[in-house]
């Protein structure tokens, strides 16, 4: 039987171009902020889970070799996890499982990237495709997601206008987040519409920025939590899945893998109606259209209703199911840390520590990570109340 686990400390670096910090120094900043937040020091850690996305972004093939000590892993177990853009969440899930298993009491999960160390982050994205079948069209991320968005809009009669609504919502939410990169005060639909169409149907307004950042979460076992903090974020459960890329009968606009993962997560947590029962959700919206698609996968609405949910205003800060109070990945994307930021933001909400972006009275939240050539999904549910 799994032990109960809670988040006892969170550390974040700003998402921006950290032109004055080396990769290990940036990792250390994330780790030391989390340690400070929890009141723990490195000796209190039993193990470290280190996340980092495709090596081609920084050309360091074994970043945990260089950065192990920078995240407190001196004479301690260190595990590297890599699941593309969802790595931040997978690293958190890895740490959660280690504590829940009963083998470790306090585990630090950390994930990040410095996307500005390369001349072109797109080369990193193009080389995630295999060289024999996948690289001919240098798909990268924007065009792969564009295929997803186009299919989705077409199937359900929506248009890029719906994606732009998401973009405006999240860009304005980001104004409340000191760690977000893109802050556009006074942003409107009109301004979003006037940005160039980069990969039909995605405009520049629909796309995320390129950031350097690290996020860190410390997980502790039930019997240690009380001595560390009186305000933990309890983990209800975590689920991850690899939907598969090129399987038979795939509909690129319908994330069946995410739906299966969400069903499992809700069932284990006893959640029957996520739209009603969840107080706040942080989803991985690297591109605006995806947020609409994830609404459906996460059962915040039925299949085909994502665009309508956005239109209704329900996912705004003032709505009944706010999504991405932090501004989401659309406002800050280091790839390596982005998914952990979603989980960390969701945890901060139930801990009541989300400052200006706090949803009043949040007690149950969901953090979502996404990655790969659109197939990895990770979910973690947090609660203010001990399960």
């Amino acid at each position, binding site marked *: 039987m799994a032990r109960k686990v809670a988040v006892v400390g969170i550390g974040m670096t700003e998402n921006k171009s950290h032109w*004055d910090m080396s990769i290990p120094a940036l990792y250390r900043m994330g780790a030391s902020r989390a340690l400070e937040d929890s009141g723990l020091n490195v000796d209190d850690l039993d193990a470290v889970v280190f996340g980092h996305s495709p090596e081609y972004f920084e050309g360091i093939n074994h970043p945990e070799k260089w950065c192990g000590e920078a995240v407190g892993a001196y004479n301690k177990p260190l595990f590297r996890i890599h699941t593309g853009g969802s790595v931040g969440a997978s690293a958190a899930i890895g740490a959660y499982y280690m504590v829940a298993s009963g083998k470790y009491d306090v585990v630090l999960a950390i994930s990040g990237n410095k996307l500005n160390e390369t001349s072109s982050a797109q080369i990193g994205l193009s080389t995630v495709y295999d060289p024999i079948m996948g690289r001919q069209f240098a798909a990268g991320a924007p065009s792969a997601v564009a295929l997803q968005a186009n299919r989705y809009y077409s199937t359900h009669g929506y248009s890029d206008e719906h994606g732009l609504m998401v973009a405006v919502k999240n860009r304005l939410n980001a104004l409340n987040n000191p760690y977000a990169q893109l802050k556009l005060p006074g942003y409107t639909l009109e301004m979003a519409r006037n940005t160039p169409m980069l990969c039909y149907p995605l405009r520049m307004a629909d796309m995320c920025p390129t950031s350097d950042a690290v996020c860190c979460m410390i997980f502790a076992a039930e019997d240690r939590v009380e001595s560390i903090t009186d305000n933990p974020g309890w983990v209800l459960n975590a689920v991850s899945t690899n939907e598969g890329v090129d399987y038979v009968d795939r509909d690129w606009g319908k994330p069946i893998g995410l739906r299966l993962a969400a069903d499992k997560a809700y069932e284990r947590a006893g959640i029957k109606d996520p739209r009603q029962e969840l107080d706040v959700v942080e989803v991985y919206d690297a591109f605006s259209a995806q947020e609409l698609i994830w609404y459906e996968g996460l059962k915040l609405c039925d299949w085909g209703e994502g665009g309508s949910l956005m239109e209704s205003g329900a996912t705004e800060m003032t709505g009944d199911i706010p999504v991405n109070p932090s501004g989401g990945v659309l406002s800050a994307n280091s790839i390596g840390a982005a998914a952990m930021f979603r989980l960390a933001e969701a945890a901060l909400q139930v801990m009541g520590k989300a400052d200006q972006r706090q949803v009043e009275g949040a007690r149950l939240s969901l953090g979502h990570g996404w990655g790969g050539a659109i197939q990895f999904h990770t979910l973690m549910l947090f609660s203010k109340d001990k399960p």
Partner: protein
Amino acid sequence: MSRVLDWDITVSYQWTAGAVYGHFLGGLKEEKIFGVRCESCSTVYCPPGDVCPQCFTDMAEQTWLELEQEGEVVSFTKVMENFFGERPSDEYLAGRIKPTDYSDHPLIWPPGVPYAMALIRMKGADTAFLHLVRDEEDLKKLRIGAKVRPVWKQERSGYLLDIDQFQIIG
């Protein structure tokens, strides 16, 4: 018979050195070798890193020391064969590029085997520094405990290979 795809991937990087590496490399440019002492445990690191592994301290805020230009060989290995991926570029061999031109050239490496990779503990430091011993006579004399000193290149740009190699002095 399976077909094979040969493809070269070329990517350019510009790694941020940051406060610690930036200072150390700046020292190399001026023919200085710096160590950093962690004030929590008194360990002197050369080469320095961003974090003291034992204490988790931020090394940018610790004490910088200019070390004497002498070291001792802690361990070494002699490389007798070039291995795949490591070759001197034709440009370098033809003398068409200068040794300090590191920024845009593929796989520049000191030419010719044999050479030795040595772990060298600089005087005053507690950790060791990986570098090269290339001189033919020195390769014959090379042993653990040998005293060495750096041989600096004429033109330096703030890079580890501003030191051309280490030479045995005792």
